[in-house]
């Protein structure tokens, strides 16, 4: 099958899985709602634009619901206003981490690479914890998430600058610079935690990664921040395949290696930062999901990138459902690691994941 055909097949299958996971997840909580009821609520929410009114100061779009299933209003409220924002945010974060992890493992040709290998998460942590410990009034009403987002991008950019010499960024240098900067930023976070006093609990909760308190505006913002760079990454998927042959080979096959690396690093950092800023540090998704999907669909990034991203969505929605369904909520980062690590070890024994 052609790559485009395989991409379509696997993407549709995994999108279907994601839909099922979301439907079941939206039913789980203090009030149980059966999946069919959830499905009706979700379908009723699908609207079609029927008319656009341009006469007013702002154009008004008249919409028409596609379906009109009878649903209980309370169930509709719970699903759409309480559970769905969190679930969708989880899906977006899982998508971003898995996509960025796929790209990083490709750039570094290293199975241990994860989305935050060039310091994105550590930067976000410094930004977030710094903001929690010493909240400063940021302009434009930006808060914790903006602080984390900018910290993430600053750290990634700093690592890139440190590792670049004469316009070349060797991945080995990038890797080591990333490790060093992560260690340094880890020390900064530890120091900030010591100074945090009352707010240490909030800071720790953020560091462990959670999706609590998600609301619709965040969903839309992060959707935009993830979707646009993801499209760019998809366009470069074929170049990344060639880069897997090694940088010199890629160059002799006509790939502008340094430029491609720069674009891939920038956009995957952007995707990661968008995910980490809303959810804190959630480990393992970006490491394990690309691995598993590579075993399933092979190393071709034109197929691997979209499928790993969709699988990451399902994985994080499912684990977050577990995280919030206990008597006391657990940060989802703990659940992903607690489930992911044993599964990964199982794969390691079964499928000989010795190399990418």
């Amino acid at each position, binding site marked *: 099958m052609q790559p485009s055909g395989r991409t379509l097949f696997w993407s549709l299958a995994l999108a279907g899985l994601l839909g099922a996971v979301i439907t079941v997840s939206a039913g789980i909580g203090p009030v149980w709602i059966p999946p069919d009821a959830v499905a009706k609520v979700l379908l009723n929410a699908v609207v079609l634009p029927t008319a656009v009114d341009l006469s007013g100061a702002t154009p008004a779009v008249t919409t028409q619901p596609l379906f009109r299933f009878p649903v209980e209003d309370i169930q509709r409220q719970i699903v759409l206003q309480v559970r769905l924002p969190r679930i969708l945010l989880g899906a977006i974060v899982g998508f971003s981490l898995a996509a960025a992890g796929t790209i990083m493992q490709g750039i570094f040709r290293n199975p241990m690479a994860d989305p935050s290998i060039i310091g994105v998460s550590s930067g976000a942590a410094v930004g977030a914890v710094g903001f929690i410990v010493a909240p400063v009034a940021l302009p434009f009403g930006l808060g914790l998430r903006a602080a984390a987002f900018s910290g993430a991008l600053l750290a990634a950019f700093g690592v890139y600058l440190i590792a670049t010499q004469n316009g070349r960024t060797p991945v080995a240098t990038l890797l080591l610079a990333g490790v060093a900067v992560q260690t340094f930023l880890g020390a900064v976070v530890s120091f900030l935690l010591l100074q945090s006093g009352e707010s240490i609990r909030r800071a720790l909760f953020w560091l462990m990664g959670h999706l609590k308190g998600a609301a619709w505006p965040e969903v839309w913002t992060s959707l935009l921040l993830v979707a646009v760079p993801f499209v760019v990454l998809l366009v470069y998927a074929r170049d990344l395949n060639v880069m897997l042959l090694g940088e010199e080979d890629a160059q*002799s096959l006509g790939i502008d290696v340094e430029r491609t690396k720069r674009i891939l690093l920038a956009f995957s950092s952007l995707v990661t930062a968008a995910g980490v800023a809303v959810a804190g540090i959630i480990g393992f998704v970006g490491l394990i999901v690309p691995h598993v999907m590579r075993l399933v669909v092979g190393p071709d990034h034109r197929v691997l990138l979209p499928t790993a991203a969709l699988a990451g969505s399902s994985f994080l929605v499912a684990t977050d459902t577990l995280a919030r369904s206990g008597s006391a909520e657990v940060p989802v980062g703990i659940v992903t690691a607690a489930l992911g690590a044993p599964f990964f070890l199982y794969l390691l024994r079964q499928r000989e994941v010795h190399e990418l």
Partner: protein
Amino acid sequence: MSDHDDGHAGEAIPMLEANDIAVSLGGTQILSGVDLTAECGSVVGLVGPNGAGKTTVLRTLRATLSPDRGTVRVAGEPIDDLSTKEVSRRVASTPQATTLSFDFTVEQTVEMGRTPHLGRFDRADEDDYDAVQAAMERAEVAQFADRPVTSLSGGERQRVLLARALAQETPVLLLDEPTANLDVNHAVRTLELVADLAAEGKTAVAAIHDLNLAARYCDELVVLSDGEVRAAGDPRDVLTSETLGDAFDAEALVTRQPGTDAPLVTPLPDRDPLDAAVHVVGTGGQAAAAVARLVAAGSSVTVGVVPAGDAAAERARELDCPVVTVPPFAGVDSNARERATELAREADAVVVAGDVGDANQSVVAAASRLVAVAGEGVPRIESERTTVTTVESLPEAVADLPPAEDRDERAVPSGEQQDRY
């Protein structure tokens, strides 16, 4: 395509040309002023010891390295003026080794050779598919098409890399040790393929460590050592004992490959040079081998009397040794016999090898010290003072001969020796 037009426009413009290339890596001078010219449709071999800079030359030729000094031109265009993509449509290369650690199939890997011809939003079309299939056929990897590259042996992977380069459909091919991991059969087939491609108009530059394969398949050789060109040109002119001694710092014997005119290089172990004048008597391949071996060991060799055209006479001529010849089947005249006898008398030792013939008995008799080469045609030696040895250890046997006055103790009657062999 415009590439081809450029190639035809100026027949005089070499397809690939490097002028005075100097490269230093990490502060070490790797190349200092290398010139290389590859005419359209030729195979140029880069030979030289390890660390001579062969790979660096290839990396410079494909613009992976930009030289500190000098220029590389492809069909007359400076390579620095071309974008990475433009270079990749003109120059394809196979690396010495590659990180093919991902489970791409052979076909997927070869398909990547089409990258230079695809725009960012292009899909591979029928032409690309055909090019990939043709490349796999020619490199003989079509039967592995669906297997992961990681499951192939080193030699098979090397052929996959060759197929990838062929799929690029470039006028210039750069090959870094294309036969390094190949068995004898595939090494020869790969180089035959390169020669065929050259005959079809492609230009190839290959770093080849096997001097004999290089001599056989390259139209021109460039001998590199310490980042400098020691010699360049026709393999027959380039591969000489002196050049090889200079470049490789090793003794090597240069003769002709059987069946072709190409030089045959036989590396020899390091020994102290044999500082002796030796006269060789005998005919045929064994005498020829003895001459070559002694010359390689450093001694000054004379030969005779041999019929003109005999292998020994030919070898002596190739190696610039004085030789006394007579026309074939004409018999040995007294003049020739006297000259040969004189040479034998002046020599420190006389070596008999192969068929000596009755006419040469007087030449043998003039020997102060005698060494016989044991072999199929056991030489008829009437002298009583002989040491018998093989061609390989001939220099040692000559060097170990006792001084002329003591030879009686060492000499063994020839009759006994002949019984033993």
